């Protein structure tokens, strides 16, 4: 079990370790408890959104609307709370909104038979526009709401609560994808939708459920982000879909569908986080850091393609 785990992730895990090793030489501060916690906190939101993205990409699809869903979910929650509604009511409502956004993506994709790139790109604009309209384009701040602040700033058994959320999302999604019949359906539909249909799998249902999960994960990310900023901002998470896609691709999720795991996506997200962290520790120019991140993704994808070609030959 442990052996097969290392065989599967040897490449990216090795990449992450080398990156950490180099980082520890570059900055003595890197391995400090504070910094490591910081890295995990930094990456927790993107990683969770990327877990959702993994479902879409496993189906050979994509979800460009997750950034907008993050912003919209945060707004729904905060606007409800500022109007005096209880947290216990607003949290499920906000998450339901996120699930509905995902449902819209999945339903229209299967109903029209259009590539999800087009559908989710449209919804990226739609949900962002809805967020802007409901907030008049302004950030909505919220202080003195204990459960809301606890989400990103609280501690449970001495562990920051967002890390607890991250761990449970890892466990949940890993379980769904590797142990349930639904997860198996996702892999089969992504690998060959035609064969899936001929084997008696309901391809539309599988697709719609998957995008609902993608939406839900973006919603969880949205709640965490709002709590972290003590406010909801209609412009929040702009471009987060690209970070999420990058994490999936770095983690070995194939854009042609059917191949990829939650653990891979997690490692992919960590690589991006460590890279950003060490570059900011070293005061690397932000613009330069963008270039470095882009190059790293290209190299990782190149290695992956090369490995698969060799396997196929």
């Amino acid at each position, binding site marked *: 079990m442990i052996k097969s785990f290392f065989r599967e992730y040897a490449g990216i895990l090795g990449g992450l370790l080398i990156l950490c090793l180099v980082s520890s030489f570059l900055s003595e501060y890197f391995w400090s408890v504070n910094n490591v916690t910081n890295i995990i906190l930094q990456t927790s939101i993107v990683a969770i959104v990327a877990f959702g993205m993994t479902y879409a990409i496993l189906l050979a699809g994509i979800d460009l609307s997750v950034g907008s869903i993050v912003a919209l979910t945060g707004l729904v929650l905060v606007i409800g709370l500022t109007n005096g509604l209880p947290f216990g009511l607003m949290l499920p409502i906000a998450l339901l909104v996120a699930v509905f956004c995902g449902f819209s993506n999945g339903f229209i994709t299967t109903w029209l038979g259009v590539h999800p790139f087009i559908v989710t790109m449209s919804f990226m604009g739609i949900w962002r526009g809805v967020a802007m309209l409901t907030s008049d384009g302004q950030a909505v701040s919220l202080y003195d709401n204990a459960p809301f602040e606890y989400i990103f700033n609280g501690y449970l058994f001495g562990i920051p609560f967002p890390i607890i959320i991250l761990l449970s999302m890892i466990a949940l999604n890993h379980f769904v994808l590797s142990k349930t019949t639904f997860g198996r359906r996702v892999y089969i539909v992504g690998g*060959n939708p*035609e064969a899936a249909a001929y084997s008696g799998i309901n391809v539309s249902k599988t697709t719609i459920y998957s995008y609902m999960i993608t939406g839900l994960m973006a919603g969880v990310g949205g709640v965490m982000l709002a709590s972290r900023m003590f406010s909801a901002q209609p412009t929040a998470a702009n471009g987060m879909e690209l970070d999420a896609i990058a994490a999936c691709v770095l983690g070995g999720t194939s854009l042609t569908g059917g191949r990829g795991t939650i653990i891979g996506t997690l490692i992919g997200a960590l690589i991006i986080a460590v890279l950003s962290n060490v570059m900011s520790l070293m005061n690397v120019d932000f613009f330069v850091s963008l270039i470095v991140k882009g190059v790293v993704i290209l190299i990782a994808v190149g290695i992956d393609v090369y490995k698969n070609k060799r396997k196929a030959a």
Partner: protein
Amino acid sequence: MSKVLLETVGLCKHFGDNKAVDGLSIRFRAGKVHTILGENGCGKSTTLKMLAGVHPPTFGSILRNGKNVEFKSPRDSRDNGIAIIFQELSLCNNLTVAENIFANNEPHRFGVIDSKKIISDAKGILNKYHIPISAEIKVGSLSMAQRQLVEIAKGLSYPSDVVIFDEPTSSLSDSEVEILFNIISELKSENKAIIYVSHKMAEIMRISDDITVMRDGQYIDTVDKAETSIDPLITMMVGREMSDIYPSKNESASEIGDLVLSVKSLTNPNAFHNVSFDLHAGEVVGFFGLVGAGRSDVMNALFGMLPYEGEILIKGKKVAIETPIIAIENGIAFVTENRKEEGLVLDHSVHINCNLASFERIATRGLLNEQAEVSQTEDSIKRMNIRVQNRHQSVGSLSGGNQQKIVLAKWLERQPDILILDEPTRGVDVGAKYEIYSIIRELTEKGTAVILVSSELPEVMNMSDRLFVMREKKLVKEFKTKGLTQDKVMVYATGVDSND
């Protein structure tokens, strides 16, 4: 002896462990029609693809006019004067015949296409080979057979002295076959070497000069047509007597059981009309017909992939089969003719694919039952003699025969009452064929009802109890297969009496 234009020396093509072609040496001479003969999967197509520059040979060499040549791409082969006419059409329907003939090879002046010259040159080619099709008509408005003739004209538009035909008559009717044969004799008189691949023995005996037989990727022999006849050729091709190709039926167990499926005036306006038949437990019913006769469409309708009018009764109960899920719930399993596209997830493991249709059934409350899945997979590998390194191997890396066995295994896990097999032995080697036939026998003895759709007449005749012939989207005849001869069936399949 006429000049040798093209020669292969010890030509080999290996795909992993699969030796598709193994040590092939043939000489193709000017002014001769050289037929390559062999069963599906014997390596003919792979050989043609090497000559066409699609696959590079693993070992061995190709000599052109006595000189060693290496084809890195189809273009290399074409520039060396080798024209290939493949059976798959590669025409654009919205372009004219002339534009298609010169697609990618347009006469031009400073990069601007000379459309007048295209038409006049195309007319020249069509006239020269007596092809009665207008150069200015859109290809989309032509029949399949006419399109095949355009494809041939396209192949002949390049300067060449070796012309390769890959099953050119599979979609041609008799009058067009005559046009083709005229083209071939015209090419012969121009002293070109013609390489011909076909399954149809009668036409092979008519037009060939030399015949090379291949079997399981091996070169068997080259014979002069004048000194041979059909029977010895078939024996060479198959490598054993007919009785060893099909497992014999256990007569004592041949009692036909209850009615399981009854199809009444099944119609889909675009695909088939008024199809009615019955199927009993423990019997094999064959469906034969030419390509496009509508056999596969009927099967797709039975499996919920194509809408239909009419009635389907399963064990006496009327069922509306709207989706494959409903079909599967009613005990139907369907091995489609395209195993790679519709049967398997090629990237995934043997394990996943063996359980493709059954993982939900053995799961409990939405959780996969891995233990049961593993034992199912291991059982299937053993029982069906699937040759794999281990169950984690991806099915894309397996040979056609092993892939087909996995498609079968995936359905047998569900123990279907009705098993539909559409071209189950296409692209499968002779050994695996025998194993697949044995599985069919074993299933029917246990009471499974089998529908066998096939284009190989000997296969349906030997494996079926009853045989239905389809022509032009209709069921035209039912036969008992006992004592039936091939030409009787062909009369109904083609609508033409072969003695005419």
